[in-house]
C-alpha cells in the first residue's frame, strides 16, 4: 500500500551539505559561476560592445551588470569565477584581475553580528521576472533547507531583520519598497539579489525603472547573477551574519 511514510523513507535525506562542503556542479550550472577573464590581455572594443548590459570594462567584468548571456565567451571569458560571489560593496563586484582571488571571509556586518543563528528575512519583489523569486523560494525546499542554518523567511517586515530585494525597482513599486524598509525594525540589512536590483540588469536605462537599488535604499550585500542560484543567495544571506563560506580560488 503506498504511503507518504514509505515515499519519505525511499527518498531519504537529500539536503545539501552546503556551506560545510563546497557547492556541487549539480547545484551550480555552467552559467551560475561569474565570468572571469581567461587571458591576461585587456578586452578589445568589439568584445566590450558585445556585452548587452555593458558589464565588460577594460579592467575586467562588472559582476553587478552581468546577465550570464555567454556572448563574451568567445572573446576570452569563461564561467569560472568563485561560486561565492556575494560582496559587501558595489565596488568589490568589479574584478580587476583575472581570476581574482579574494579569499577572505566577509566580516559580519556590525549591526547583525548577533543574529548568526537566527536571521529572519523578508522578501520583496520590486519588479522581477519571477526566476529570482523562485530561486529564493527554493531555499525553503528540502534540498536546501535554509531553516537548518537559522535563516527563516517571514510573512511580515515587522518580524524581519533582513530585507531581500529581487527585481529592478519599478516606479510603481518604489513607494511600497520604501514602506517595507521603514517597517523593518532596527538593526537591519538590505540584500540585493540578482543583476536587476544591483544595476538594472538587461533593463538598465529603461525609463520608469530605477537605475539601481542603491539609489533608493542603503544596500549592504550584493549577490550577482541572473538569477543567482539558491546556494549563492544563501551565501549572500549568510554573509550578512558572518557565516559565509570562504571564497575559493578556482
Amino acid at each position, binding site marked *: 500500500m503506498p*504511503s507518504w511514510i514509505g515515499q519519505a523513507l525511499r527518498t531519504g535525506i537529500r539536503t545539501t551539505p552546503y556551506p560545510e562542503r563546497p557547492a556541487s556542479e549539480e547545484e551550480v550550472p555552467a552559467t*551560475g559561476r561569474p565570468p572571469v577573464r581567461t587571458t591576461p590581455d585587456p578586452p578589445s572594443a568589439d568584445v566590450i560592445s558585445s556585452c548587452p548590459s555593458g558589464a565588460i570594462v577594460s579592467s575586467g567584468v562588472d559582476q553587478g551588470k552581468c546577465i*550570464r548571456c555567454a556572448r563574451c565567451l568567445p572573446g576570452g571569458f569563461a564561467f569560472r569565477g568563485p561560486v561565492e560571489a556575494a560582496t559587501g560593496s558595489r565596488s568589490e563586484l568589479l574584478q580587476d584581475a583575472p581570476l581574482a582571488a579574494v579569499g577572505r571571509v566577509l566580516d559580519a556586518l556590525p549591526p547583525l553580528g548577533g543574529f548568526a543563528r537566527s536571521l529572519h528575512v523578508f522578501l520583496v*519583489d520590486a519588479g522581477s*521576472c519571477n526566476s529570482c523569486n*523562485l530561486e529564493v*523560494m527554493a531555499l525553503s*525546499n528540502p534540498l536546501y533547507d535554509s531553516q537548518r542554518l537559522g535563516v527563516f523567511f517571514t510573512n511580515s517586515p515587522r518580524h524581519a531583520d533582513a530585507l531581500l530585494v529581487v527585481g529592478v525597482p519599478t516606479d510603481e513599486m518604489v513607494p*511600497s519598497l520604501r514602506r517595507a524598509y521603514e517597517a523593518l525594525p532596527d538593526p537591519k540589512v538590505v540584500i540585493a539579489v540578482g543583476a536587476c536590483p544591483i544595476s538594472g540588469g538587461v533593463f538598465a536605462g529603461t525609463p520608469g*525603472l530605477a537605475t539601481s537599488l542603491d539609489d533608493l535604499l542603503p544596500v549592504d550585500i550584493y549577490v550577482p547573477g541572473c538569477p543567482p542560484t539558491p546556494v549563492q543567495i544563501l551565501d549572500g544571506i549568510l554573509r550578512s551574519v558572518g557565516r559565509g563560506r570562504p571564497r575559493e580560488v578556482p
Partner: protein
Amino acid sequence: MTTPIRALPRGAEEGVDAAPLGALAYASEDGSLAVYNDYEVGRSVIGPPPDFAGLRTVAETWRRSSKAGVSRPGGPADPIDGYGVFTFPYGPISMGVPESGKFEVRTYGERILGLSPVAGFKSRRILSSVVGSTIPDAALRIERLAGNFSAAHTAAFLAAAESAEGRPVAREELWIRALGQELQRIYNHVHVLARIAEAAAQNVGAAQSHALAEDLLRLQGSVFGHRWLFGAFLPGGPRRATDREAREKLAARLVPLARTFSDLWELFLGSRTFVDRIQSTCVVPRTVALQWGAVGPTLRACGVDWDDRLRVPTVPYNDLFLDLPNESDGDALARLLVRAHEVRASFLLLEQLLDRWPSGTDGDEPPAANVGPERGLGRVESPSGDLVYDVYVKDGRVAGIGMRSASQANFPVFARGLRDGVFTDFHFAWESFGIVFAEVDA
C-alpha cells in the same frame, strides 16, 4: 475563413450551457489583426477583424485598456454594497502571493464578494523597450519577461520574428525549443502541485514535490547550462548538451523523475483531505471561461478542448503523439488534474523528441506564413496557456511588437471565479491558475 464563428448570445445567463463557440485570442492595438480560436472546429483563424462585438472577451478588453502603471480594470467589485461591506486592499507585497500585485477585495468579513485586481506594479516596459533592438538583443529581454516561462516566451517571439522575416530555421533548433518548453512545462506544473500542497498543509507531499521541482531545475541547468533556459535558444548562448550521448543520459534521467511524479500523484489523489480542499474551490463556470477568455489548463478544466500544440500545428508537435484529456468541473481540482495529464503527456513527448532527434543533414524548416508584410505571429502553449506574439521586423530589428500572455487572459477569470469564495480559498485558487504577474505587467 470558411467556417463562420458563432458568438455567445449577448447577455446570456450564466449557468446556461451555451452552444460551443470560439473566443477572441488576441487583437492588436491598432486593430489591424485579430486571432480567434474556434473551439467547435478546433482551428484558429487569423485575419482583420470583422464585426466581432459578440466575441469580445473581458480578457482582451481589459488587456488593451490597461496601461503600464497602476491600472484598475473595471472589476465586478465596484457596485457591491451592503452593511459593513468594505474594500480590503491585499498587496502589493502580500506574502501569500509570491510576486507583487494587488487585489482589492470587497468583503464583509470572511467572504469575498468581489475581487478587483490591480496590476502594473511589475511593469518593466519590456514591450516598448525592445522596439528598435536586434532580434537577439530583444530576445534577451523577452527571455526575462517571465523567468519560469522563458522557454515559451522566447520560442513564441523567435517564431514570430522568423515568420516576419521569412527566415528558415534548422530543424534541430525547433527540437531544442520543444525540449526546453516541455521541460519547463513539467517544472511549472510540479511547482503548482507543490504550492497547492503547501497551502493544504500537506507538508510531506509539498516537500516531496518541491524536491522533484528542484531536480527538474537542476536537470535543465545541466542540459542547457542555465536553470531557467536563459540564452538556450539564442545564437552564442551557453553550450547545450544535445549530442547523442547527452540525449541518452537525459532520457535515462527522465525515467525516475517520471516515476516519482506518478507515485506522488497517486499519493495526493489518495489523500481525502487534500482532494476535499480543492474540490469545488473557485469554480469557473464554462460560460464564464468562454466569455471571459480563459486559456490553458483553466479552459480545459471547463471542458473546452484547446491546446496550441494540437490546434496550431507547428514543427515538431505536428508529428508527435499527444493525448490531453480534459476535465469539466472547472474547480481547482479539475485544473490540477489537467496539469497532471499534461505532465504525463510531456514526459511522453520528451521521450518521443529524444527518440526522433533530427540529424544534422535534415535541413532547415521553413517558417510559418507571415500575417502581413514583415509581420509575423508566434503562438505556443505556455504552461499556463495560449501565448501570442505579434512582431514587426524591419532590417533585422524589431519595428513593433504586441503580446498576449496566458496570465493576462486568466487573470480576470480568476477574479471572477473567486467571487463568493472565502479568504482561505484564495491561495488554492491563485496557485491553481498559475498566473505570473511578471507576464501580466510585462
